[in-house]
């Protein structure tokens, strides 16, 4: 029995329950439980990654009800790699939060673990309505994490976030309801079968509800024109929360990729290749506007928010090719950029804390106390984020460009990727030079503070992750190629889930 398939969901949920029930106000105990859970989740994720690397698919029928009548969890390459990613980012974000963020209000660890459970659940479920439930868990958890430790700015951003996402939930229900009305099922594999069997008279309705569903996912994935909420939300959150949020948008990307290949893929009859004409152009525009926003930002954290948008644009543009190479490159870039952006949020927090009253504003600030150390880390992070050698961003871009060659719209992809890379270079070198080079001395009597070893640990850890990721790009790309091939072969998924 594949009980382990549910571990990445149950471990964090149990932690989130054990903490209030048994740890009380004992912060050390809370941290201990939370850390243990995060480690366990990460190892569960890595274990799943190992299993999925063999190309096999695993299912787990909850309640022992056979698909499509009950809810199933499904593990394929894509789910596995995203759960593992969540585990890794979760661990480092938690390590950072344990340096003091979690003291600033009650229930940090409960919310944090629930968030992880929600994200992992969304990646693992094979049921569309269950996906909705996990969206709700992660929405509520993320909303509360966002406003965690209070302040007017956070509350304001939180209100925007929660209202937009509640509307999104409503649209989700409408779309799922309609799809259920047309196909009579909620299991994604089963829905894929049903959709492919639909008659021409159902074209309009099924496409309308499918696109509506995609709109909801696009809101989560911050795709044009639904990205405007993100910069403010991410820049308002505390650093570890923002770092964890870098995975949150990938839930949207995941859902888009999953549904557009499985249910509305090439073999989907009246809804065949539904997203093919739209995804890449919108994603490329997202990429452009993301970097325009990054260069036009007045604050570092906001810049990071826009960089997330840009990275989402790039990965979705590549996935929008709907070829093995394109999806594979997109997944590679997704893994890379998620780690990099998590790293960036933590690092910029450390930097901003040493810049005196200007904090993260892009104006002349104090010389950071630990300028050399922070500078080296920032340089490394920027290299990764801007897609420069010797780190994985460069390889990711190579993969994407190579995938786009000879493809329709390939020219636009090339042009936009190259131009935005240049903007990235300019924007980041301007920011870096302002923060580290063009500085004022700390005024006498003031102190900019120092980051402790514990503060540096998660940052360095994530940078090491990127370095390892780069070094092992060979096996990684083999894995993403396999995953992309799985996605483009929906019958594989369907047979595994429905068993026929």
């Amino acid at each position: 029995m594949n009980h382990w398939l549910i571990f990445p969901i149950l471990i964090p949920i149990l932690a989130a329950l054990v903490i209030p029930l048994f740890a009380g106000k004992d912060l050390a105990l809370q941290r201990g439980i939370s850390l243990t859970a995060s480690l366990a989740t990460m190892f569960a994720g890595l274990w799943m990654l190992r299993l999925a690397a063999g190309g096999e698919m695993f299912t787990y029928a909850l309640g022992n009800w056979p698909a499509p009548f009950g809810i199933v969890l499904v593990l394929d390459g894509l789910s596995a790699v995203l759960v593992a990613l969540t585990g890794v980012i979760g661990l480092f974000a938690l390590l950072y939060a344990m340096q003091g963020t979690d003291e600033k209000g009650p229930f940090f660890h409960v919310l944090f673990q629930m968030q992880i459970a929600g994200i992992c659940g969304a990646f693992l479920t094979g049921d569309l309505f269950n996906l909705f439930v996990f969206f709700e868990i992660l929405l509520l958890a993320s909303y509360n994490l966002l406003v965690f430790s209070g302040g007017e700015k956070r509350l304001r951003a939180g209100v925007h976030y929660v209202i937009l996402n509640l509307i999104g939930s409503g649209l989700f229900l409408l779309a799922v309801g309609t799809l259920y009305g047309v196909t009579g099922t909620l299991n994604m594999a089963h829905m894929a079968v049903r959709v492919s069997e639909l008659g021409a008279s159902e074209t309009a309705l099924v496409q309308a509800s499918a696109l509506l569903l995609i709109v909801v996912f696009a809101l989560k994935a911050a795709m044009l024109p639904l990205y405007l909420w993100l910069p403010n939300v991410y820049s308002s959150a505390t650093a570890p929360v923002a770092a964890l949020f870098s995975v949150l948008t990938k839930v949207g990307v995941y859902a888009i990729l999953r549904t557009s290949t499985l249910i509305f893929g090439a073999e989907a009859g009246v809804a065949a290749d539904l997203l093919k004409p739209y995804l890449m152009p919108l994603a490329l525009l997202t990429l452009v506007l993301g970097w325009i926003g990054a260069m036009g930002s007045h604050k570092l954290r906001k810049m990071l928010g826009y960089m997330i948008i840009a990275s989402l644009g790039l990965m979705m543009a590549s996935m929008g090719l709907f070829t093995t190479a394109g999806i594979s490159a997109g997944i590679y870039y997704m893994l890379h950029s998620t780690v990099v952006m998590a790293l960036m949020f933590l690092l910029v927090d450390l930097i901003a804390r040493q810049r005196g009253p200007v904090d993260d504003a892009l104006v002349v600030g104090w010389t950071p106390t630990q300028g050399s150390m922070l500078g080296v880390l920032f340089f490394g992070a920027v290299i990764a984020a801007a897609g420069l050698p010797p780190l994985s961003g460069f390889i990711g871009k190579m993969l994407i460009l190579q995938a786009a060659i000879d493809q329709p719209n390939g020219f636009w992809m090339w042009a936009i990727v190259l131009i935005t890379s240049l903007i990235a270079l300019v924007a980041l070198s301007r920011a870096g030079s302002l923060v580290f080079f063009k500085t004022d001395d700390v005024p006498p009597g003031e102190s900019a503070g120092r980051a402790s070893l514990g503060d540096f640990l998660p940052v360095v850890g994530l940078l090491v992750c990127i370095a390892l990721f780069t070094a092992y790009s060979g096996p990684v790309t083999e894995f993403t190629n396999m995953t992309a091939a799985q996605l483009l072969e929906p019958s594989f998924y369907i047979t595994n889930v429905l068993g026929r």
Partner: protein
Amino acid sequence: MTPLFIVLLPLIGVLLPLLFDRFGRLPCTLSAAFPTLMALGMLFSMGPAVMAGEVFVISWPWVESLGLNLAFRVDGLGFLFALLILGIGALVIMYAHYYLTNDDPIGRFFAYLMLFMGAMLGVVLSENVLLLAFFWEMTSLSSFLLIAYWSHVPAARQGARMALTITGLGGLGLFAGLVMLGNMVGSYDLSVILASGELIRAHELYVPMLLLVLLGAFTKSAQFPFHFWLPNAMTAPTPVSAYLHSATMVKAGVFLLARMHPALAGSSEWFFIVTGVGLLTLVFAAYVALFKHDLKGLLAYSTISHLGLITVLFGFGTKAAAIVGVFHIMNHAAFKASLFMTAGIVDHECGTRDIRVLGGLKKYMPITFVLALLGSAAMAGIPLFNGFLSKEMFFYEAWKLPLMGDYPWLVPAIATLGGLLSMAYSVRLVYDVFFGEVGETPKKPHDPPFGMMFPVGVLVAICVAVGLFPEPIIGPLLTAASAAVLFGDPGAIDLSLWHGFNAAVVMSLIAIFGGTLFFTQRARLYVLADKIWPDLTGKKVFEQLVEAVATAMRTITSTLENGSLQRYIALLLGFSVLAAGLPLVRFGIEPGPMAMTEIDFVSVVMWLILVVCSLATAILHQRRLVAVIVIGVVGLVISLAFVQLSGPDLALTQLSVEIVTILLLLLALFVLPKSTPHEGGFTLRQARDIVLAAVAGLGTALMAWLVMTRPLESISRFHLENANYPVGGGNNVVNVTLVDFRGFDTMGEISVLLVAGLGIFAMLQGLDFKYVEGTISRARDRYPVMLTSFSRPLLALIILISIYVFFRGHNMPGGGFIAGLITSVALILQYLASGIDWASERMRINFKLLAAAGVMLAVLSGMVSWLAGLPFMTMAVQFSLPVIGEFNVVSTLFFDLGVYLTVIGSMMVILSNLGHLGQIEEEYDENERLTEADPWKP
């Protein structure tokens, strides 16, 4: 393995200076010199074989699906460049040791320098072109760090960013071009690419690919119009200028031309673009150099000009010209590095590099003078120096050039003009600095320490030696390198000093004498230049461009992301309408075959009430209390609709949710202003929103209609069939669905409830509550006797009912969720009727824990099935134990109890905390009404 080590040693060496920094300057310098010399030694060990024409290629796979391999190649060209990089690198390390002051962080300097060295070696020794692009960008990055080394100087920061931007631009172009190239050939390995010249040149994408690759070469080698970053990079410490910005990094561009020569050269596009750009750069930069008053500025432009010359040679596309190009690369590296170091010495010892200030240094710095004189002679192309040889050969190739059709004189003329200007600025360099009147310099000039002159001396000695005995010294290396560039046998290379009296000699003579004459007339030229030379520098254009772009981006961003929630919602709804509407319009709206049901009078009235109340909510939203009441009516009508449509479970749920929601809303409104401020008159935005809301609402209705007119063949048939005891644990299919079929959903939803409860608690804890003007004014009679006395006995009754509802849920409408809500209502009623303190004192339950315990119970009941080896949440499990025998466990009851507890717990947490807010607010009031008895107290 050796080639890998040659590249890796300096990269490992990045760490050494950082580690040895603490032990003092000398250990730090030695720690940088050590890996350099070691790599140099390893390179030499390969020398004989390379000279013999052997090509070493080693390869390890890295990212195989990408074609990116860790593949290195040592051939004549790579060897030559590696020699320059390591040889001059070692000299520069020595020079820098003396050049840098004690205030400069020397460890960081050498770390950057080693990073560059490793990257540059990677460029020249890559076998895989993707790897080449990889190292290429790394050289740009390390150059950025080195230029910005004195980061407190604004010009250094600007120069660094400019260099990074321009070379970064080229790097991206090159990267793209090489991917295209590899795609054409089917391999990224140089061995394959170099052998596929004809295929490449015939490819339909040849020209765009060529342009991209050349963009990389021209930006790196500072060719017009990308030249301006190089003079601005002169803010770097002089060792960096000598090393990166004259001898090595800027040569990467011409290296690329040489490397790709067999694959790309030979087409007319190649000839016209490369030769054209090279000639323009050659003359333009030489002319500008003449007017530069900064010693390093002059040398920078001279470097650009010489790079132009080399570019021209590769542009010719002939074998002989390419050989000369390789030759001049070596010569230029030697004399220009020496001259930069000399300029650094002058700067170091005099405190200025302004040629107008300097003068007559011959007296004070005799050795430096000699070195500068010899170096300049090589630069000017005076016979018996290395520069003369390659320049003479350049003239000869220009003269012989067959490709110019009706304008055979054009290239030789431009070449001669370039040579003439080169002579002029060389003379100026020596004369204005070392002869004439002694200037007022900030420092008293004198010859520098030996360690600083030694590297210059070595380089000058090479210039002279090669000039005198070219064949024995440089012959084999040049042959090997040329063989690599030509990808074939270069044949015998004639390096003799005198070829007889030919056109090249005439051109040389014109250049030397014309240049001297030009120099003597310089005073007049300066005046003229000031008049006609536009006040337009590349730097200015670049900075204005970047600033304009940045401003535009700021404007776009702040215009789009204006922080208006209304806008974001409008975008979301608009996009949804578009997404759902497009297929509906495209494929037509086609209702299903089901007949519409009869319309009865009561329903029509109810639906009308629903519509009116919905509209009223929107219209009355400014009067919040009224709006909440009206929206309550909407909820009630919907529950009635569920009753009518035979959904008693849904109706019950909807009803209890509705009551709880309204109560919570009222509590929240208690502390909020009672009305929303007016936003002024009817605006365009409101019009937009009304239209959008109407379309979205009607569209939703349309979709619902389309769905409901279709027959539904769904999986619920299975659920209906299986909802019977004991398979599904009950007969009520709704409840069985909630606790069994889709119990996992329910577990998720109660987790949401828990998170909501705890989240609201956490949020309100951190809220800095301020008294808001205009909150709801309270009635004097706050705890109506009727309500208070009614509610208390009612509590027991309602709880009884909820327990009943809970248990009957298995077979009849009801269950944990509804029961929980009913209990919550009973408890809320106590709070409302008797006050929060009164109620809290009597309910000593930690509702947060209750909620958590509820979810825990649900999860644990789901885990029971694991004991029987069945999946999570298998509710009906048959166990067989040895003594007891077989028995059934149905966990649904416990699961449902978990749901029940979570609902109560979460609801009460939210409620009591919102109530608590009211209390805080109350304390503000207290001061005004101290005399009044406090009704919050029981």
